[in-house]
């Protein structure tokens, strides 16, 4: 019996309807395509009303197949499958055509967009009629979770999960957890001491019975799938035996080699070759930096070893590997800051008293290199005037098109700290002031009251060239004050560049490792920008914090907690459904040639010596279809991607070409005999 196909064309507001003549497509499908019994277009198919439309038609019109022309199946395939299943139709009897991502958003010409849409609907209609009913399989979820990145977002996630009684492995690349927040002095807008609110959470992590902390470690390899990931972690050689180290710090004290600390002190402070980034570091064990260590360079010294009371120094230590199994993974790998030297007119690296925002954080941090004294690069002079330049490397198509989101508020915080600590004049040069969240505008007001000057204008250049009296020995900010419409020159002692937040340079590589994608800029891509911000396209992999995009502390913490909630949901449910898209070998057709045997990287194919046939272990099969395509006897079929389905789809997609080109010979009953 012929299938009864229902076709639904989504307007997606104007997203599709603005480019594609949706009424025409829907009418055409109803009239021209075989077995289409209902064809409708609707404003928002993904809305509950749109879904009800499908459900009602299945129930009332006896639809046996459903085609939805809407967005990418990666967004709403689940939605429409669920609608089908609500109405009692097997969810796999539904097929989507991506009219938005593949047509309306990428096509200039409206008529051509409509024609392409018809082809895609035709392809889907042809294909869906050959779909088979499938039932998803369930696999258990390992309750262990892996959190990658020990900044505030990762810490929050780890604690939420651990507090709910589930084991967590937290991996941190640096010697200590804490992330950027550990470097900051105060937090906006409350001016809480950053360390005071962060360090209790850090020590909770270190003492939590459910958390295994692997610092100075990196994820090497990830295999497996949602609920059942296998992860290999490289624990880098610390040259300190953690079991023996008491964290007394004598080794650090005795180390004769002092080097610039480019990481924690942002390059304006020093550390030893064996070091702990900061006193409250978690874990407490120091790390020996072999690249600068005198012993590694010259073969002598070993001061640390000599003075260590517990013999915890081990120069022979090597990287080790730890293999773990986890059910879910949360990436909270954070951000990097823009290299201000790419904007040479701001003079960073050339003009001594131009600082980056991160340098300034360390400068006013009581635990920083100046004990919190805000001074010029000479280390002693207190500035009398300070300029803060916003958007350095942000909102700039040459570097980062995005707004870095946190700089306006950080600049206000800096302004307050400068005024409070030095009484200096503070000038902010902003492009647009964006204090958008709770109590932020109030903080802006506070700074206005405190006398911080605000000039709307992106600074043209910072120069030491004094051209007028009063400019000598100063850094001069050359700017158009856009609210006055005039050029101004403002001499100051110190300049702070509010550097852009950028994706980590290896974000793409890390994304690949975990099987998730990045935006063009390099931020991890969430499953849905609004409704699913911490999940990714890969089941079981979640993201939290600034690795997904610039974010301040409250937002990072919220995401950390949100990601934990998503993972807990999976753990509580105990099992996840795996798509039943697997391959099957039809034994009666298999002659045991063994071509397929080497093709499966998941070892899902076995050869049965006694029966001389190959079989697929469907629990291991991931459904890639490579063996299906390889079988010379066509004895393997791939569920939901069978040859027949694909051939039908090709033919449907080429409906306008196939018509009358002789590709499908119409064999009529020939009239050979003369009448």
């Amino acid at each position: 019996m012929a299938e009864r196909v229902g076709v639904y064309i989504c307007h997606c507001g104007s997203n599709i309807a603005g480019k594609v003549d949706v009424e025409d497509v829907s009418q055409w499908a109803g009239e021209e395509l075989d077995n289409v019994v209902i064809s409708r277009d609707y404003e928002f198919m993904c809305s509950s009303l749109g879904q009800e439309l499908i459900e009602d038609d299945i129930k009332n019109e006896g639809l046996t197949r459903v085609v939805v022309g809407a967005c990418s199946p990666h967004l709403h395939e689940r939605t429409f499958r669920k609608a089908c299943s609500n109405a009692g139709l097997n969810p796999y009897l539904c097929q989507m055509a991506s009219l938005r991502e593949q047509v309306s958003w990428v096509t200039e010409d409206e008529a051509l967009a409509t024609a392409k849409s018809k082809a895609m609907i035709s392809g889907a209609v042809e294909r869906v009629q050959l779909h088979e009913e499938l039932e998803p399989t369930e696999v258990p979820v390992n309750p262990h979770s892996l959190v990658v990145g020990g900044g505030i977002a990762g810490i929050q996630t780890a604690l939420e999960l651990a507090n709910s009684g589930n084991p967590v492995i937290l991996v941190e690349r640096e010697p200590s957890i804490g992330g950027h927040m550990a470097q900051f002095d105060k937090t906006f807008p409350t001016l809480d001491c950053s360390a005071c609110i962060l360090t209790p959470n850090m020590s909770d992590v270190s003492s939590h019975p459910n958390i295994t902390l692997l610092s100075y470690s990196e994820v090497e390899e990830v295999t497996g799938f949602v609920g059942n990931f296998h992860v290999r972690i490289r624990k880098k050689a610390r040259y300190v035996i953690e079991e023996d180290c008491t964290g007394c710090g004598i080794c650090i004290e005795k180390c004769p080699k002092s080097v610039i600390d480019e990481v924690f002190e942002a390059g304006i402070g020093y550390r030893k070759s064996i070091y702990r980034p900061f006193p409250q570091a978690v874990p407490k064990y120091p790390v020996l930096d072999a690249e600068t260590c005198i012993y590694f360079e010259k073969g002598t010294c070993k001061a640390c070893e000599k003075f260590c009371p517990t013999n915890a120094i081990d120069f022979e230590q090597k990287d080790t590997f730890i293999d773990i199994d986890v059910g879910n993974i949360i990436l909270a790998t954070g951000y990097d800051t823009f290299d201000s030297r790419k904007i040479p007119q701001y003079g960073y690296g050339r003009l001594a008293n131009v600082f980056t925002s991160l340098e300034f954080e360390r400068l006013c941090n009581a635990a920083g290199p100046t004990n919190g004294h805000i001074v010029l690069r000479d280390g002693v002079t207190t500035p009398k005037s300070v300029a803060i330049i916003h958007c350095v490397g942000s909102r700039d198509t040459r570097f980062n098109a995005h707004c870095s989101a946190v700089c306006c508020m950080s600049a206000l915080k800096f302004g307050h700290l400068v005024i409070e600590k030095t009484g200096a004049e503070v000038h902010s040069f902003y492009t647009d002031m964006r204090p958008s969240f709770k109590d932020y505008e109030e903080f802006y007001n506070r700074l206005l009251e405190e006398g911080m000057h605000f000039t709307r204008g992106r600074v043209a250049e910072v120069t030491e060239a004094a051209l007028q009296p009063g400019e000598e020995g100063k850094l001069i900010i050359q700017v158009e004050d856009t609210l006055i419409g005039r050029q101004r020159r403002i001499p100051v002692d110190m300049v702070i560049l509010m550097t852009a937040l950028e994706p980590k340079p290896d974000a793409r590589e890390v994304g690949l490792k975990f099987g998730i994608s990045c935006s063009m800029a390099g931020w991890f891509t969430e499953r849905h920008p609004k409704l699913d911000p911490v999940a990714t396209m890969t089941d079981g992999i979640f993201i939290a914090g600034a690795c997904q995009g610039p974010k301040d502390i409250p937002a990072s913490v919220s995401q950390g907690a949100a990601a934990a909630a998503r993972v807990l949901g999976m753990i509580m449910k105990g099992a996840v459904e795996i798509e039943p898209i697997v391959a099957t070998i039809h034994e009666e057709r298999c002659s045991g040639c063994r071509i397929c045997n080497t093709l499966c990287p998941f070892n899902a194919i076995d050869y049965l010596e006694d029966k001389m046939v190959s079989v697929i272990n469907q629990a291991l099969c991931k459904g890639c279809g490579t063996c299906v395509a390889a079988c010379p006897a066509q004895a393997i079929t791939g569920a939901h991607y069978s040859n027949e389905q694909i051939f039908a789809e090709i033919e449907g997609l080429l409906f306008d070409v196939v018509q009358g080109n002789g590709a499908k010979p119409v064999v009529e009953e020939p009239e050979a005999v003369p009448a």
Partner: protein
Amino acid sequence: MSEKGVLALYWAASCGGCEIAVLGINEKILDVAAAFDIVFWPCVLDGKVRDIEKMDDKSIDLCFFNGAIRTSEQEYMARLMRQKSKVLVAFGSCAQEGCIPGLANATTKEAIFQTAYHDTPSTVNPDGIRPQTETEVAEGTLYLPFFYETVKTLGQTVDVDYYLPGCPPEPERIWDAIVAILENKLPAPGSVIGAETTVCDDCPRTRDEKKIKEFKRTWEIVPDPDICLLEQGLVCCGIATRAGCGALCPTVGSPCIGCYGPNEGVEDFGARMMTALASVIDSDDPEEIDRIIHEGIPDPIGTFYRFSLAHSELRRIALPANGGSDAKLETAESA
């Protein structure tokens, strides 16, 4: 079957091997004669087309049609036999998939004529005469069938009820088919009467996982008598070829060339061979892969489509003037 059935056999573009294969059933031919009135068998019996034309439609119970379709006369006969037969069987590889005559699709009609009427050493044709579809003589016009550019299978020409694979079909399989017909135990119309497995199923050689670093030609090695020929680098088509022959060739150390056609459900035999062989090439380096393929398989059409070119998805090589006008064909004929 109380009354005798009516049987016809016809021979279009083929070598005649199928006719001999019918006789290969030996004395069982008498059983056939007992069961059927043979009304038409040009190879064996005298008969006239006009007699068939005069018959009522569907008055032939069974027609074994061997050979591919390459002229208008063959097409006419195919249509005629279809019209007059209840059950039309594409008999043998030529009718089923074009077979060796179908390899003409790897060249052009013009090239064939050039070779046949001009270039072969034995041809003496000083006036460069070529046969024409129409020739005026004193008595009127003489006609010859129109020679097709592309060889077709029977199935591409008319509806076929059953296919009997093989070049030629093995006598045992022919007899099986006749029995099935007599006992009315036929599978669904349109299907192949034969096995659902491949030659490997009948092949006595031991087989292991496959990884190919180099394809070998038959003259390059003396194959090990016991292990799979493919594993030894020989392009054995047994993996993709329907069982039915009893794995005659591989058993004696000669790789299968695929005469029994593709396995059940397969549209394009060559695609199956290509994908299977390529999948097990032991290299991830694009250049090395290219080298292995180009050096090992110098003639991909002959290797993968020896019997099935006419039946394949693409059916033939591209014509030099694809989409040319009628005038071009005329020129080719009249040149």
